[in-house]
């Protein structure tokens, strides 16, 4: 059966773009979540037409498919459950750039940094830049509706999509605009495959300044944050807690890093601002190298942030994040993995969500709010009634 499937898929994508080799299947059976599934076959389509034919075939013959971008997801969204893995990394073309109207049409496998490198030549950029921008693909960024480090200014990925071209789970090609974009943006691929996106583009930021505040308590930090957010010129606002600061070799205090697109910040020298960003960007790698390797992304109401940070500190867990979106990134060492479900329970108790930007995948299924379950089931009924695509994800 699988040999037959390989032959049929090979006819669609070409022999060099399909593999049933043991080690290809092994390496495509996992992603950055480190959850391991089982891949029956790996297929690399190179065109929208091929994706269409793959999904039509899968529908007719009830072949489950799992869609995959760069595999940097942290919730197992690309982990197959005895499914064919459809990898979009070879659909990586920038199709059109309209300088006058400021948009770009791209395939799903385009890497964010590659896109922005091209756009920079034209004085433009796609501003939703998560910290995995070096390797994250546009399709993955859209599927998780990612938030970047400048989320307070630029919002989420879905705020920057004019049009999505998709093949739904029944094999029907659709062009989605306005509200319907959110059916696919943020639903982690459960409705079908994104085969193209028209992205709105921004002008690069003007001259910026920055301030790094230090506080003795999280309450003081939040007070200052609320004061700052009354302004219109804030482009980024990030925090890290005292446990993180200690591990970074800084004074053991809570830090708030604010970037302004004006003269309001205390640090005005561009190289000094770049140094501050470097320090912010170094948090994850530094914690990783000290054994704090498991990254989470709960989202909590601002007033409950001290509760979560307090609990994490008591357990020796460092945390940082995008305070403007209420997204916290605690990093756990492998030996304290058991604390993660306990943290999820606390997050639910204080009215938060277990994921703010990394998605639910399979890893956080048991913590999904009822409203999300209903919405995803409704989307599945509409776009993928046979449950061909990303089976077992989210619900």
């Amino acid at each position: 059966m699988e040999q037959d499937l390989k032959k049929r898929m090979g006819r669609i994508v070409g022999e060099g773009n399909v593999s049933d080799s043991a080690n290809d299947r092994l390496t495509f059976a996992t992603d950055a979540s480190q959850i391991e599934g089982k891949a029956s076959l790996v297929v690399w389509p190179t065109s929208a037409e091929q994706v269409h034919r793959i999904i039509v075939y899968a529908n007719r013959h009830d072949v489950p498919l799992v869609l995959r971008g760069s595999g940097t997801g942290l919730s197992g969204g690309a982990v197959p459950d005895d499914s064919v893995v459809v990898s979009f990394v070879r659909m990586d073309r920038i199709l059109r750039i309209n300088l006058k109207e400021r948009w770009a049409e791209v395939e799903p496998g385009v890497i964010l940094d590659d896109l922005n490198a091209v756009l920079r030549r034209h004085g433009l950029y796609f501003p939703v830049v998560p910290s995995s921008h070096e390797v994250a693909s546009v399709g993955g960024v859209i599927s998780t509706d990612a938030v970047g480090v400048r989320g307070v200014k630029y919002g989420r990925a879905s705020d920057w999509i004019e049009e999505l071209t998709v093949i739904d789970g029944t094999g029907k090609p659709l062009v989605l605009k306005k509200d319907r974009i959110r059916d696919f943006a943020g639903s982690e691929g459960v409705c079908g495959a994104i085969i193209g996106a028209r992205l709105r583009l921004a002008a690069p930021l003007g001259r910026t300044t920055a301030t790094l505040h230090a506080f003795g308590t999280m309450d003081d930090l939040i007070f200052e944050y609320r004061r700052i957010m009354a302004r219109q010129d804030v482009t980024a606002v990030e925090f890290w807690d005292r446990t993180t600061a200690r591990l970074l070799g800084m004074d053991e205090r809570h830090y708030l890093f604010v970037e302004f697109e004006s003269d309001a910040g205390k640090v005005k020298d561009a190289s000094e601002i770049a140094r501050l960003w470097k320090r912010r960007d170094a948090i994850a790698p530094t914690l990783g190298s000290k054994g704090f390797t498991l990254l989470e992304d709960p989202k909590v109401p601002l007033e409950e942030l001290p509760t979560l940070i307090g609990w994490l500190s008591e357990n020796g867990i460092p945390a940082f994040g995008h305070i403007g979106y209420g997204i916290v990134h605690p990093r756990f060492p492998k030996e304290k993995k058991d604390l993660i479900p306990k943290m999820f329970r606390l997050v639910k108790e204080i009215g938060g969500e277990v994921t703010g930007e990394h998605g639910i995948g399979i890893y956080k299924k048991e913590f999904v709010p009822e409203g999300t379950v209903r919405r995803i089931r409704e989307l599945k009924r509409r776009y993928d009634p046979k449950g061909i695509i990303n089976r077992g994800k989210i619900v």
Partner: protein
Amino acid sequence: MSGKDGTAGAERRQPKDIDEIRQTIERCVMCGLCLANCPTYKAILSERISARGRAFLIGKETLDETYFHCTLCKACDVMCPAGVPLSEAIRRMRELMVERGLRIEANERMIGNIRKHGNPFGETKKGEIPKDLYCC
């Protein structure tokens, strides 16, 4: 096992001290940032032919020609947020395979190419990507 991995059925044979090599990659969290710099991944766009794929296969004590695709350029080491010395682990996997006589198809092809063409890649024409992208 498929010959496409170049493993010719040797995939699951485990040298005794592979544990030591596994320990060097213990801190790998599969984040994938190394993909951004890995020249073989950039060329082929396949997980198996990538720094992360190699780390995963070492963790599974699996032999594969992908260790010989690696250029040992250390770009993955530079990108790695957890400071995993992956290129060293890959180099040691190659050594181990040679020491233990665990020749795979890739070794045979490289040896044949060196004897015939004076390089591990085989016959190469200007402007063309060599068929065998092995690096010894």
